[in-house]
């Protein structure tokens, strides 16, 4: 339903451009670009790319090498972490499994082997097939040397196995386990385009790859590669045209979903662990439902409404299935699947911070955690990293007692002990604002028989409960800039230190002037010098 709504909304691709924010803040300031880095495809990018090539029906491995976060994002981690030998082994196995499926499926085989071999060994037909698949999988044309090796591999296998297609399977597998597929080779050294020295800018094919992984979380389509071949992605007008086309394409929904999955740690719901004897509403499908609620809400906010990112924290619109409706104590909107729900004014719950995905994930297996919820706000929403506690501190929270029935009294020790207070003052008062939600996200007014006091203050913004805390978060001067920084890091894979501060501020100004609209920001970042220019290899 959102795709439809979005498609309508996006029939005017000039929407983001038509706003005046860009010109108001002037030209992009001079900035020093970050050096290039080799990024390994994340698990999501690997899956999306395989689906883009071979369709949704292709069976993919249960797991490839795990992603690790750096500065909160897989996008950044992918530029720093290395692969284990078990990971290489998994990629190899997956490459054969997938290549075999392609050859075994008449339709897929007809698409990817566009010629009829004249013999068991037919190097011309193999080359034609490998060239076609290779261009999409590697996001650039193959060199003559590269193609020759793949043709030889295929020919050797064809002769040994006495079958052209069985042989070509090995060539396809080689394409799919090559570093040219598994890594994003965006180096700005001009080699992709046939140059060979530092150029200061990503070349056309590198731009195609950067754009598609940023906006679609997947490989470029043929049109984008054609634009690269025509040199359109290194000039302003050509780039603009492709960015607007991509933002109007359904695939951008995948991109936005992945952006927020990474940013909000929604993947961690896979390992959600709750004691069902304490949280009786815990069920096997709760984690998946909670993730979908958040992502559907974001889709609606970004695509249906093109609304402010800040609304994420105050919106009363959400999407629930029966599982979540039971947790939230509201009528289920649909018998099957998700339906739209407008949360009541007096229900206490609204925005992403009232959703089970945030509340349950940032809590313990058997209780809430005011510290974890507070840390999430600081680090993820406000981009304010909280240092680790001193390692030798006793961090025990006193047990429930007559004079300490709720978490507020118990947690007070953290705030009295000066060693703990430095950091816990930054986190716990925020977390206490969510104490009306238990460790799963169920509403409650009392804990151990005592009324919960969820009031507090966040950097000068007073709140009385989670409802008003949502507004304080939305109004926090750091919330918009943090989204800008996160978007830039997500797009470039750079650590914050490698981003040019002046340029971040320039994007922040534009984001703010354009009503904090996510699609506007994505477009702005895709056109940014931070996205197009490259520092020298170090």
């Amino acid at each position: 339903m959102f795709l439809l709504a979005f498609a309508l909304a996006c029939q005017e691709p000039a929407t983001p451009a038509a706003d005046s924010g860009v010109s108001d803040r002037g030209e992009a300031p001079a900035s020093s670009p970050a050096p290039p880095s080799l990024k390994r495809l994340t698990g999501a990018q690997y899956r999306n790319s395989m689906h883009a090539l071979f369709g949704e029906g292709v069976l993919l491995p249960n797991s490839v090498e795990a992603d690790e976060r750096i500065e909160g994002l897989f996008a950044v981690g992918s530029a720093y972490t290395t692969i284990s030998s078990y990971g290489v082994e998994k990629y190899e196995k997956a490459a054969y499994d997938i290549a075999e499926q392609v050859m075994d499926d008449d339709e897929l085989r007809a698409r990817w082997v566009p010629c009829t071999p004249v013999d068991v060994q037919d190097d011309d037909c193999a080359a034609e097939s490998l060239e076609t698949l290779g261009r999409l999988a590697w996001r650039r044309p193959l060199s003559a040397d590269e193609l020759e090796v793949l043709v030889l591999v295929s020919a050797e296998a064809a002769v040994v196995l006495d079958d052209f297609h069985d042989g070509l399977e090995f060539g396809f597998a080689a394409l799919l386990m090559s570093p040219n597929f598994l890594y994003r080779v965006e180096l700005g050294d001009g080699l992709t385009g046939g140059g060979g020295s530092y150029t200061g800018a990503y070349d056309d094919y590198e731009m195609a790859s950067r754009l598609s992984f940023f906006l679609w979380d997947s490989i470029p389509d043929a049109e984008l590669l054609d634009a690269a071949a025509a040199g359109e992605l290194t000039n302003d007008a050509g780039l603009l045209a492709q960015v607007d086309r991509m933002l109007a394409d359904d695939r951008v929904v995948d991109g936005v979903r992945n952006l927020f999955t990474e940013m909000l740690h929604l993947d961690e719901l896979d390992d959600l662990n709750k004691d069902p004897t304490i949280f009786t509403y815990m069920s096997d499908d709760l984690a998946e439902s909670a993730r979908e609620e958040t992502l559907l809400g974001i889709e609606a906010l970004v695509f249906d409404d093109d609304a402010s990112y800040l609304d994420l924290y105050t919106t009363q619109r959400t999407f629930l299935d029966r599982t979540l409706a039971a947790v939230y104590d509201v009528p289920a909107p649909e018998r099957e699947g998700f339906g739209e729900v407008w949360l009541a004014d007096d229900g206490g719950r609204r925005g992403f911070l009232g959703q089970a995905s945030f509340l349950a994930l940032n809590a313990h297996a058997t209780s809430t955690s005011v510290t974890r919820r507070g840390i999430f706000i600081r680090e993820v929403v406000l981009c304010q990293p909280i240092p680790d506690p001193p390692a030798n501190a006793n961090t025990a929270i006193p047990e429930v007692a007559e004079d300490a029935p709720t978490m507020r009294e118990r947690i007070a020790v953290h705030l009295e002990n000066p060693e703990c207070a430095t950091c816990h003052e930054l986190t716990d008062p925020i977390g206490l604002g969510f104490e009306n939600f238990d460790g799963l996200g169920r509403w409650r007014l009392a804990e151990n028989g005592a009324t919960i006091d969820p009031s507090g203050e966040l950097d000068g913004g007073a709140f009385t409960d989670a409802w008003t805390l949502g507004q304080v978060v939305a109004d926090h001067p750091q919330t918009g800039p943090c989204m800008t920084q996160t978007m830039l890091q997500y797009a470039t894979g750079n650590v914050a230190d490698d981003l040019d501060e002046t340029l971040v501020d320039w994007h922040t100004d534009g984001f703010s002037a354009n009503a904090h609209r996510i699609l506007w920001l994505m477009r702005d970042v895709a056109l940014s010098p931070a996205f197009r220019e490259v520092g020298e290899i170090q």
Partner: protein
Amino acid sequence: MKHLSDLLPWTRRPRRAVATERAVDWRPGVPGLSGALSRRAVLGGFARGAAVTIALPPLVAMFDAGGTAYACDGVLPKRFGLWFWGNGMLPDLWTPETTGSGDAWALSEQLAPLAAVKHKLCLVTGLSCKVDNTIPHGSGMAAILTAAAQIETGSDETVAAPSIDQVIADQIGGYSIYKSIQTTATSSSGQSWNGPNSRNTAEQDPYAFYERLFGDTFIEPGEDGEVDPRLGLRRSVLDAVMDDIARLDARLGSEDRVRLEQHLDGVRELEQRLAILEENPPNLEACTKPDALTADYADIDGRPQITERNAIMMQLTAMALACDQTRVFGHYLTDPVSDVLFAGATAGHHDLTHNEGEPQPQVNAITVAIMERLADSIAILDSIPEGDGTLLDNCAVLCTSEVSLAQTHNIDEMPTIIAGSACGFFKQDQHYRSLSGENATKLLISLQRAMDINVSSFGIDSAQADEGLTDIEA
């Protein structure tokens, strides 16, 4: 040229003539077994634009003059294991009252589950991690496994050096199909590190683990099979991949080059594995293919089936060792900071270590449960006969955690047990207590020496040690 079979009686013999003549010989020389080739040498070659692979004299370089360096009694290989759990123990209930060997010491309350295997343990208490304790759980993990402080960048941390299992696997892991295998009984990522930001993630799915070890490519000793022609073809593909890596490598900056080098290591390991699979499996009596799995290992009510998962992962690991599929394993019952719900516990493990009141009876019960799982694991290794003894006798398994008392993230009084004597290298039924809080790195030196790795100094900066723990060496 000498072959492995000339050196060691247990080793592989060539299988029936390979059915496949290479139809197209376009490749540079492919070393059959190339584990000893240094990574730097290869990449150095790349940097100069040289060819992809460099032929090596197989294996000989890895043995000492006598050719018995890594074998017990000249027959069976030595193995190294890491058995890790998260969140430490309670030192007062962990440390036995007396020291010495045999009847001179008795197991403590927390160690009581190990009674059946006490005679094959060397318990070491009182060691300290000599790093600044700046990162709760992280500092201790890095010190006890990598002998170095963690690298901190903003709010992200990673290790500065490879973990001990990989240090040892670099030396002894090159002959077997897998340089090392890593498993968990929960959903832990594991703590096996090749270096900064380079983790060898632990397998958590018993079915995937079984398939990997004993799936289609597994051949039991004595089984008379045709060589699968696909094995050779897959090696050709890997050569093409290494071509790609070489071309790419020449364009990269120094940091990315190190990362791609790690990828190359994985490809080379895979190629070597395929080469080994083209030969006959070693004729090891204890090696049999385990029955296919049937049980369901899913969590029940939010609690992992730790007992069952631990047992199956260790049984498969033990058979992988017995079949010489690997000589190094890491097994992570849980990770540092694990908040797993143990049976009967009212909160997650880590949560309880900080928030349960004194004297922390639940934390104690969890630690005892962990030692029960350790006892299961050791018994599994000890149940496989090898030579005059058991598989365990040819192992040294370091059993440890990232802290002692988790409540305060204490990294003195570290919990360390060595199970198995590594062919008589370590004293058995021994409790050695360091009264001076000796550097825990000393234990890592002794473990390397137990694997016949000649090392006199190990560790970085304050964690460095220049001698082993000679008191526990037989």
